[in-house]
């Protein structure tokens, strides 16, 4: 009898715990956070929450010029890293697909940048970019160029961080696209060889359209992650010089845990959340179409 009842509620026993935990540790705090974003509350000055309605949002949108700077930096950053990583990654994938029969151990080397601790990635690039003793400046001088202040020069700081991000994530793109290329059916290629197609035509009219679903999944995953970039900024530049590399995630962190202005930080985090929510919906829609 007990056995029969247990069997009836099996779906709940299996799925329930995960749902409850997610509700408690993710969804409930997110709702709680709406409350904070509608209040004025400074963690250091103490005191109680003061309900201020939409003032934190109003401040962010209409009175805080730094928000737009940060938003612009973030959009430039995401577009640049994802675009370049996709292009270079596709190039590497095509190259490996052609020149290497079995990828084996090379695959592990390829994802070293992606699976190693992001803070260590930051440390490595800080070491390479160091204006006095960095290897990059050493090579520049070796070839007769002047030393550069990679992370300190306002014109160079953002491209430098972007370059580190590209090193970290391009192999990830390449690996996914390579997997996509290797799973393509052979028949269309054989048929096109018989028809005398050039290798560019083969890429343009066969590989590319067939690879498109993989490409979109990789692209969306990367866009979502790029919006969240934090570790690299924290180690490399702390958003500086000025606000040149101040990504939204870092800006939000600064409001919350440097200025302890929890209300404004929560408002900022909701804005970031909404941006990502829209992108996520695209991803899910696409993913779902593939599942069904």
């Amino acid at each position, binding site marked *: 009898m007990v056995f029969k009842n*247990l069997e009836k509620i099996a779906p709940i*026993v299996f799925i329930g*715990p995960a749902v409850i935990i*997610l509700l408690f540790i993710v969804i409930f705090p997110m709702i709680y956070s709406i409350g904070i974003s509608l209040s004025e509350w400074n963690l250091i000055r103490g005191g109680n929450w003061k309900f201020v309605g939409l003032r934190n949002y109003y401040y962010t949108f209409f009175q805080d010029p730094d928000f737009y700077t940060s938003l612009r930096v973030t959009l430039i950053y995401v577009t640049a890293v994802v675009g370049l990583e996709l292009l270079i990654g596709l190039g590497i994938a095509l190259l490996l697909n052609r020149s290497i029969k079995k990828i084996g151990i090379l695959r592990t080397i390829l994802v070293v940048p992606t699976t190693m601790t992001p803070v260590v990635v930051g440390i490595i690039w800080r070491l390479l970019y160091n204006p006095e003793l960095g290897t990059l400046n050493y090579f520049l001088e070796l070839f007769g160029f002047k030393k550069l202040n990679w992370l300190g020069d306002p014109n160079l700081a953002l491209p430098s961080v972007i370059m580190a991000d590209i090193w970290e994530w391009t192999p990830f793109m390449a690996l996914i696209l390579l997997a996509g290329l290797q799973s393509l059916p052979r028949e269309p290629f054989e048929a096109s060889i018989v028809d005398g197609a050039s290798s560019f035509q083969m890429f343009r009219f066969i590989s590319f359209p067939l690879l498109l679903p993989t490409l979109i*999944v990789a692209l969306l995953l990367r866009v979502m992650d790029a919006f969240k970039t934090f570790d690299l900024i924290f180690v490399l530049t702390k958003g500086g010089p000025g606000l040149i590399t101040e990504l939204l995630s870092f800006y939000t962190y600064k409001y*919350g845990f440097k200025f302890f202005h929890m209300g404004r930080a929560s408002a900022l*985090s909701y804005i970031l959340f909404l941006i*990502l929510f829209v992108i996520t919906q695209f991803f899910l829609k696409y993913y779902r179409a593939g599942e069904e």
Partner: protein
Amino acid sequence: MYTHRSKKKILNVILAIITMLVFIYILFPPIMLFLTSIKKNVDALRYPPVWIFRPIGSNYREIFNLIPFGNYLLNSLIVATISTFLALFIGSMAAYGLTRFRFRRSKDLSFWILSIRMTPPVASIIPIFIIMRTFKLLDSPAALIIAYFTFNIPFAVWLLRSFFREIPREIEESAMVDGCSSYNAFFRIALPLIAPGLAATGIFTFIFSWNEFLFALILTGTRAQTVPVALTGFIRETGIMWSHMAAAGVLAMAPMILFTALVQKNLVKGLTMGAIK
């Protein structure tokens, strides 16, 4: 015909060289880190860089005396291990439930779980910080275990779901006809069948927890600090302790590279949460 063939040969050589350059480009930065970690600090600070030097291992020893690096390693190990096992347990149950039971909106539920994976950590860190503070859990491993375990559930559910889907349900169904309960079917039949998938998922969640920085930075202080946060401690007002930081960095990343080598076969699947095989 002859010229065509030799042209092709030249092209192949060029492509091989480019491929090699790509791998050198990928490996050069970590190699520089390793070289710095086996240099004396004076050598590490020398410019132009010295390429020939007597390698030393003392940096690796010294970091354990300079800072309580052993504790931080232990913290990282504890947090990553416990949160991984919890996420695997809860995640595999949910994944099994979502693939095996037919009920209304099961698909919506799966996608709701996936969408949680997409929320930016910086958006949830503020309320979680306040909640942990209220429950006096700040600077304790428990805070990080709870956070990592929860945020790894969606990943684990999705990846395990893709593994469960690959095993035919008939095996379990025939067992259940013989009177085996869903619970037995899960623990005795399905779970052992996806053991490799379970291991791969666990390795991934371990890597994520080990590497995580933002939550560790905000939820821990001096006691429960994990390795990534400890690494940033080498950047001080008085300057950066390069060779020591490099040694600590090597110790932080080496196990992750090893783990990556272990999941080779499921690497792409894991990195895309089962979207691409």
